[in-house]
């Protein structure tokens, strides 16, 4: 009999019910199980009995046949011996960033924007700084900085971000050419992405992005009225009809990778309708992110969580229905890599901000990520110099799952401890996760597990 006395069930198992399915995540192994009523009931009794099999059997027998309890126990023990049940945690404190070096840059190539989105965390592109665009010289220095700083890492990433990067398109092109040239000499490879509001995504730029194999993320919030309440021209008019045709034309050209990315706010808590609208426009790779911050009326509050949870379940249903109809759609936040996912060290070190991932302003200043730009206490250096502020690096290197009070959370290996910036801006503390984001993340995970169950046993 497997000895479970003292096993920390609440930290190492996640038992949940979603849309008719009883499911169990064995947190430390990453195994996911679908349970029938008897298995769910027996496990509940086992948890209540703190791992005492005899007590669990006795309580179980009050409702079910005793032999059924024996069957469930045999299956649980077999799963245990396969390593997929009641697994124990590894020594997570022994994992760290090790030899991690910068390998990924968010290049804020333009701190100007041709939209005035009401929820913009970048303060209409400027991040509270001067409205300027990046020079060729600074962009080249950023590439040089990354190639040198990345040491033995081969796969480098550069995302053109802003503001609106297409407002500095010549420097985008020059940077791609320069980056490829320098990477070839250094024996490395650049993956380029570009995040745009699509207003200036004309034929010339679309052709360029296709020819260069640049992955593209295009912003569109969903239904016309929803998009046009938030994503507006400087004079106040909505942008939907200006951008939707450009995005569709871009997608029709089959970019190497694309996402249509929307933001939902307190004003469109029925965001599954926006997801459906984006599906109906023919988009197959969609992301809908909860707004971060925002003015009163836009910001997401705890009172909205109930509806947000229901919407995520509705999204899962829409996705499943489309798959049954041979119209699959890839929703970024349900897109879990369940079998070839990242290693544990990656999972507990999260996004890599301040260590592997850095953001660079038009003036060349370096910050831990795009969301920290303009926060002077987080300025780490400048691309004109090699080297980064060690004390800031240390703060981020320390800020991993085991140090953030996340060791009791069942979602700890899927969120990396959550967004550093969200923790900082919500709680004034890098190591205090933003609980609203945690709640939403957990629901997305449950929905993703549910979809996995449907796909396998549906």
């Amino acid at each position, binding site marked *: 009999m497997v000895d479970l006395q003292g096993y920390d069930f609440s930290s190492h198992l996640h038992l949940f019910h979603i849309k008719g399915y009883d499911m169990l995540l064995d947190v430390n192994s990453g195994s996911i199980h679908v349970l029938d009523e008897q298995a769910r009931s027996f496990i509940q009794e086992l948890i209540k009995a703190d791992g005492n099999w005899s007590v669990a059997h006795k309580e179980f027998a009050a409702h079910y046949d005793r032999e059924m309890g024996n069957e469930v126990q045999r299956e649980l023990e077999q799963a245990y011996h396969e390593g997929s049940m009641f697994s124990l945690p590894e020594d997570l404190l022994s994992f760290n960033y090790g030899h991690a070096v910068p390998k990924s840059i968010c290049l804020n190539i333009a701190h100007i924007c041709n939209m005035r989105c009401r929820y913009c965390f970048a303060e209409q592109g400027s991040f509270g700084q001067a409205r300027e665009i990046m020079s060729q010289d600074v962009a080249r220095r950023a590439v040089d900085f990354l190639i040198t700083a990345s040491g033995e*890492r081969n796969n480098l990433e550069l995302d053109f971000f802003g503001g609106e990067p297409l407002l500095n398109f010549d420097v985008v092109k020059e940077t791609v050419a320069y980056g490829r040239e320098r990477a070839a000499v250094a024996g490395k490879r650049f993956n380029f992405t570009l995040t745009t509001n699509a207003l200036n995504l004309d034929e010339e730029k679309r052709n360029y992005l296709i020819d260069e194999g640049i992955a593209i993320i295009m912003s569109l919030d969903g239904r016309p009225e929803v998009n046009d309440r938030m994503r507006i021209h400087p004079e106040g008019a909505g942008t939907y009809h200006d951008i939707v045709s450009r995005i569709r034309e871009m997608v029709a050209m089959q970019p190497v990778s694309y996402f249509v990315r929307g933001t939902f706010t307190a004003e469109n808590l029925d965001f599954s309708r926006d997801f459906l609208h984006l599906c109906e426009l023919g988009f197959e790779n969609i992301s809908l992110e909860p707004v971060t911050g925002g003015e009163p009326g836009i910001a997401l509050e705890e009172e909205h969580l109930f509806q947000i949870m229901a919407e995520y379940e509705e999204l899962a249903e829409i996705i499943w229905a489309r798959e049954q109809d041979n119209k699959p759609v890839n929703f970024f936040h349900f897109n*879990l890599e369940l079998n070839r996912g990242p290693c544990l060290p990656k999972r507990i070190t999260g996004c890599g901000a301040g260590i592997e991932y850095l953001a660079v302003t038009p003036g060349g200043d370096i910050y831990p990520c795009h969301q920290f730009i303009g926060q002077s206490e987080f300025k780490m250096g400048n691309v004109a110099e090699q080297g980064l502020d060690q004390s800031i690096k240390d703060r981020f290197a320390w800020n991993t799952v085991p140090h953030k009070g996340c060791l009791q959370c069942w979602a700890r290996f899927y969120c990396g401890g959550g967004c550093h910036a969200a923790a900082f801006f919500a709680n004034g503390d890098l190591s205090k996760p933003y609980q609203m984001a945690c709640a939403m993340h957990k629901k997305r995970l449950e929905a993703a597990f549910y979809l996995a169950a449907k796909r396998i046993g549906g």
Partner: protein
Amino acid sequence: MAEHRLPKPRVEGSNPFSRSIKLLLYYLKEGDRMSNHIKTIVKPNLKSDKDTNCRECQASCQSACKTSCTVGNQVCNK
């Protein structure tokens, strides 16, 4: 649950011991774990052996995600 319960072998008789043996023989023959009640849809997959922590995989914010941290959808590059 009925819609996704695993196919259960048909076993006759009311003797629990005999029933268990028949179930065991069935699953041994099928080459699968006994799984009347528990269906494993994802096997153990969290790796931490010596080949891990190579840091070659994508940074999570270099994609459609710019405001929340998601590492569970990254693909191991090894």
